[in-house]
């Protein structure tokens, strides 16, 4: 009994008091945690592999550490070592998931460089366009998965959406995804003309003529008076109108 009183009870008292304190200030803690993650959903944090949080102990030095990880990925890139390059890029992203450039360039390297390295690695006799297209598609899907994780942290980010659209078009011939990427960018009031132009082309390619005509007319109102784009867009609007009529007649 004396042993308990002398040795155990002080520790037990301390734990109980700390427990009581923890429970009492739980509302303050929860409010601060909610404020901290109000702009980032739990899914987004999971998407970034809980990333920045793990390296919280580094404090602000995360950005410097992520730079070194990125430089390491450059070294692996010059050696055309895809697995090492990918892991170094993932580390840079994990250290600082807030940097848009890391997501964007990592996706570009994955989609546009890795397929060439993989293709060269296979036997010359086995090389053909079909195989290259398959490799391109595989890395394209991987790059899009990476960008989707980045988009959870940076929703509606211009650079990430345009990059995703580029990869979808060049690696997967997926014009539907590309259209979906350009849609939110084109809907913005201050959307650049080239974004509208691309969205217009994608709508035409995907057979959405009515929508395309509206976007085309917006380009005509926003483009400069002497823009060489005007006659091209006007002609394309006329063609779209004819195609729309044909579609409606068929219906």
């Amino acid at each position, binding site marked *: 009994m004396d042993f308990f009183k*002398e040795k155990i009870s*002080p*520790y037990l*008292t*301390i*734990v109980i*008091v*700390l*427990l009581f*304190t*923890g*429970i*009492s*200030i*739980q509302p*303050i*803690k929860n*409010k*601060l*945690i909610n*404020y*901290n993650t109000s702009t980032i959903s739990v899914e987004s*944090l*999971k998407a970034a*592999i*809980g990333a920045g*949080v*793990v390296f*919280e*102990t*580094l*404090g*602000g*030095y*995360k*950005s*410097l550490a992520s*730079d*070194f990880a*990125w*430089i390491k990925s450059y070294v692996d890139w010059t050696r055309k070592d895809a697995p090492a390059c990918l892991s170094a890029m993932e580390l840079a992203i994990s250290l*600082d998931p807030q*940097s*848009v*450039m*890391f997501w964007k*360039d990592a996706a570009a390297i994955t989609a546009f460089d890795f397929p060439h390295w993989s293709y060269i690695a296979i036997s010359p006799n086995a090389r053909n366009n079909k195989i290259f297209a398959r490799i391109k598609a595989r890395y394209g899907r991987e790059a899009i998965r990476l960008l989707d994780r980045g988009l959870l942290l940076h929703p509606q980010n211009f650079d990430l959406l345009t990059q995703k659209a580029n990869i979808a078009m060049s690696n997967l011939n997926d014009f539907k995804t590309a259209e979906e990427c350009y849609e939110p960018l084109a809907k913005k009031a201050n959307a650049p003309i080239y974004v509208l132009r691309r969205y217009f082309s994608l709508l035409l390619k995907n057979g959405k003529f009515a929508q395309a005509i509206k976007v085309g007319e917006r380009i005509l109102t926003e483009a400069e008076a002497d823009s060489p784009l005007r006659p091209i867009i006007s002609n394309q609007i006329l063609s779209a109108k004819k195609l729309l009529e044909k579609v409606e007649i068929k219906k």
Partner: protein
Amino acid sequence: MRRTFLIATNTLKEASRQKLMLLLALIALVLVASSNYFLKLDIGHERLKFVFDFTSGALGFFGSIIAIIATCQIVHSELENRTATTLLSKPVGRLGFVCGKAFGVFAALAIFTAVVAVAGTSMLAYTYISFGESAQKLSQGLTINYFGVSVFCFVQWLRLCTIASITTLVCTLSSSLLFSAVISFAIMAIGMIGSAIEFFGAKENFASQLAGIVFPNLQIFSVAETFAFEEVSLKIFAMCSAYAVIYIAVCLCLSAFAFSKREF
């Protein structure tokens, strides 16, 4: 109160003589002062944010190490040199002694934070001036809120004081400096990354829930980082301060309690 103040003053003097603490503070300061130079190494970060990160890193990384090491050294030197016995034989209460020691460390941490804050703010201003208007463009429209930076530094000081209070509690319970330092670092790690564990698929169990309640969540103080480039939210600032003050008060009272149970 006067006696506590005297102990605190002496502790501050003692802390300023600690070579390891001075060395760490110097490294932190040099890194903050050279943040503009490190911009050459930067790839793709917002410039002003990158420079600010050095201030945040100095306070977060070096500050935490200083808070733990300084507290451990100060409390254990009193116990090992038996000066604590001499002090306690005078009309100095256990709470007065513990508070005096802790306040001395808090004052040392305040000086460290103030110096880093001044250096960091100067570097931010220098970066802004040297890059002119392009600094803002290169920082994706971020604007420095100098008042926000000082509020952020104050919140970080509160965080360091919380770490120092927990370390004081650990020191009063243990008899080895190394043990105290290791346990304090472990508690700090739980407070920093404890909430991230579930993101890696670890299932929440009774032990993790208990640890989450017993130990303070040190990650919540990083919420103040937004103040550097946005408006200061007084509500958030007040909540951070309240959280830290409650933990500091409880830890110091428990340290006095543990000290009263200790045999010399």
